[in-house]
């Protein structure tokens, strides 16, 4: 793996007013289809090699040697999801199925900046493999707001859009979404240094075996269980509770926005398309006119052009919808991090509670007084007191348990603290990213509207000229 070059990477956002540019010259762009700059420098997170003595987060996240702490993969590697292709093959139950694969291309950045453009390394991956990668990341980095994948099935469709997964428009938007996912992961300080992620990008065969070997599947199951469990935390960090609430609100409002937008799109389509009828009737009318004929006929053509223009307009708007959808899905990750905090806090509280009850038992045993009801206490009352030997044995066990308990509480405490620090750090990073990205999305939406208005003015001005010649 090459050392990261001294030169700066031109990670440019696509802020062009000519919306719709594919940005093929802006190589390392994290595009939510309309150009979004990733925050490549995350605020300092303690994610590198851990100071001695403290347990690290479950699962190793420090990548191969040579990657310095605080850098991201994106600085050294250019990543593209270049193409999509249909394949047919036998699935697990030996039935023939058709699915889509996506070509991931990677290239060391140095060569690009030096002007050499070697053929990139590439491999094919299907959507389900991306899902596996993401699940692995969720489990391994519970304190990170993990980027979402593009939707599995088309939702919030308006009538013209096909809800079919094989539809070329859907596949194309998915390709962009997958590339976006990879770029976001590659620009995250913690995630991008993950070995499994690196292998995902570079080794087509055998990756699945490697990832399953990490045993993340089992953790994934218990994680899900924990996330869905109900438990009451006594002292949660208020910030996380607020974040979770924010996540709910944002999900709700974006869903609503997407639904209404789809209806608006549907109606706009109707308005434009009906104008196409003018084209036909003007043409027919012009046939019976002498001087008026030419003007009418050409005006009719403009009406046809007007009606046809709505297709492109709405296709562009889908990009905006995709940007919103990304953050809709992001909320699940955000809420999961908050939930994980609750879980760790809960475990800490449980451990502390356990410890304190053991200490209480010890006290009771020592003083002989029974403060609280316990079955042992009752039985001993009923069946007689214990012998001093028995009591001593019990005391010894309790002392051991208390010592273990104290260590556990200490451990859980620092775990909790560390989680809170790392998670909150990442949440702050995410908040900034979200504000930036959504503002960009709104800007590009406004630009789309402006373009639509200008086209409308153009068409009607042309038509007016024709009418004037009548």
């Amino acid at each position, binding site marked *: 793996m090459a050392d990261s070059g001294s030169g700066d990477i031109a990670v440019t956002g696509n802020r062009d007013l000519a919306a719709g540019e594919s940005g093929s010259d802006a190589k390392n762009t994290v595009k939510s289809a309309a150009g979004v700059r990733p925050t490549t420098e995350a605020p300092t997170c303690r994610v590198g090699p851990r100071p001695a003595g403290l347990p690290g987060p479950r699962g190793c996240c420090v990548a191969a040697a040579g990657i310095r702490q605080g850098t991201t993969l994106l600085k050294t590697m250019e990543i593209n999801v270049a193409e999509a292709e249909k394949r047919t093959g036998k699935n697990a139950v030996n039935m023939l199925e058709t699915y889509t694969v996506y070509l991931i291309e990677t290239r060391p950045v140095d060569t690009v900046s030096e002007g050499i453009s070697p053929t990139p390394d590439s491999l094919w991956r299907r959507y389900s493999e991306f899902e596996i990668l993401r699940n692995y990341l969720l489990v391994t980095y519970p304190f990170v707001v993990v980027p979402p994948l593009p939707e599995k099935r088309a939702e919030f469709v308006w009538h013209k859009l096909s809800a079919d997964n094989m539809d070329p428009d859907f596949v194309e938007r998915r390709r962009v979404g997958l590339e976006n996912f990879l770029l976001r992961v590659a620009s995250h300080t913690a995630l991008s240094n993950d070995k499994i992620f690196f292998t995902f990008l570079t080794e087509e065969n055998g990756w699945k075996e490697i990832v399953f070997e990490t045993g993340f599947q089992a953790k994934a199951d218990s994680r899900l269980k924990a996330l869905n469990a109900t438990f009451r935390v006594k002292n949660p960090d208020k910030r996380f509770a607020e974040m979770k609430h924010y996540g709910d609100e*944002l999900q709700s409002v974006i869903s609503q926005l997407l639904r209404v937008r789809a209806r608006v799109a549907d109606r706009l389509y109707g308005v434009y398309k009906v104008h196409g009828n003018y084209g036909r009737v003007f043409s027919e009318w012009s046939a019976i006119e002498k001087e008026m004929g030419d003007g009418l006929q050409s005006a009719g053509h403009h009406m046809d052009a007007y009606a046809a223009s709505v297709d492109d307009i709405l296709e562009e708007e889908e990009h905006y919808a995709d940007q919103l959808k990304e953050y809709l899905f992001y909320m699940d990750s955000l809420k999961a991090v908050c939930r994980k905090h609750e879980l760790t806090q809960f475990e800490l509280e449980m451990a502390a509670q356990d410890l304190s009850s053991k200490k209480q038992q010890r006290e009771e045993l020592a003083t002989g007084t029974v403060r609280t009801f316990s079955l042992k206490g009752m039985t001993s009352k009923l069946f007689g007191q214990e012998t001093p030997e028995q009591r001593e044995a019990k005391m010894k066990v309790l002392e051991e348990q208390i010592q273990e308990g104290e260590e556990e509480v200490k451990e859980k405490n620092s775990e909790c603290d560390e989680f809170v620090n790392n998670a909150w750090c990442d949440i702050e990073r995410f908040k900034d990213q979200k504000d930036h990205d959504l503002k960009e999305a709104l800007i590009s939406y406004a630009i789309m509207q402006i373009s639509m*208005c200008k086209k409308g003015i153009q068409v009607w001005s042309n038509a007016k000229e024709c009418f004037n010649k009548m």
Partner: protein
Amino acid sequence: MSGGTPKTLCSSGQRSLQEICHPLSAEDSSVLTPSPDVGTAAATGSIGEKDLSLPNGTPVDTSSPASSSSLLNRLQLDDDLDGETRDLFVTVDDPRKHVSTMETYITYRVSTKTTRAEFDLPEYSVRRRYQDFDWLRIKLEESQPTHLIPPLPEKFVMKGVVDRFSEEFVETRRKALDKFLKRVADHPVLSFNEHFSVFLSAKDLNAYKKQGLALLTKMGESVKYVTGGYKLRGRPVEFAAMGEYLDVFTQKLGTIDRIAQRIIKEQSEYLVELKEYGPVYSSWASFEAELQEPLEGVAGCVANCCSALEELTEEMCEDFLPVLREYVLYIESMKNVLKKRDQVQAEYETKLEAVAFRKEERSGMPTDVEKCQDRMECFNADLKADWDRWQNNKRQDFRQLLTGMADKNIQYYEKCLAAWESLIPLLQDKQENGKPETN
């Protein structure tokens, strides 16, 4: 913001039957004191310079493409039309509501300026209601059956559906009535019609109407051109072409009307969704910090687009559709005239044929047949002249109508464009002045 509820005119108020001055009585015409020796507008000063406005103060829209500005009309003293110098100017304005215990109706002021000798005075100002215009049209049709009489706006309106006294409806009607009188005034034959002159000048039209009725029954004027039952041999090519043209043209107008209505419907439904769309951005803004201003900005833009769209739809309803429908009516009456012409020709041909068989009378063409031939030739000539005039007017009218439609759409997009463009610097500014992003 243009609302959905139509505004009503202020009425002259509820008064008892005795108190109510007849709209055509001295009260209104006292506004205009005719001085016999001065033949200019300066004497009265009221018509020429007075601002046109509805009773509630809103200025009358004189910029509508569908009707000529009445001010312009008054000033065009030297305008050449068909080689003639215009000497008759007519305007319809100042609608007023009259409420009586019997009925409520609207009257319009009809103002005339003329140098024609047939008129006693150079200027007149009378008040007329729709009934009067309808009467005039019928009289014109009866007395000038060989000519194309311009149409009136539709007589009947469904009481529950349309508010006959809303400002929009009255204004639409006024424009149509104004156009009707102007077309008549511009016609070289119709403008000299006696009924027309009386309509423009008489203080008490009802008296004249009754008198005319009596006269009619005596002279049987209305029976004059009623011929029927004759079979037509061959229609001259030009008239056949006219008929065909009118048939196809009516069809196309009907289609355009349907398309326009459909567009209005689609736009209304689009508006409904837009009105729900904007507020979602606002409610999102309510729990955001950095994003609050941009989101509110978007909500504001959408709201602006909503009101622009409402205006567009309203204008299409008020200005575009009525003119289309007017032409459909025009064509209907024109087809009737063509039919009458056919009848006159058929009568002539039949009578001519009958004479040809009668070998005895060779002294000359019987006067009856001669009269028929005369009648036919006059009819054909009048009709041809009117047809050309009509084609010309039609071309101008539709050019105006369609460029008007294009204009309205351009204005709509311009309003929306302005709204969105004003948002951009606000958003981009914040983005650059906000948290510094490392590149």
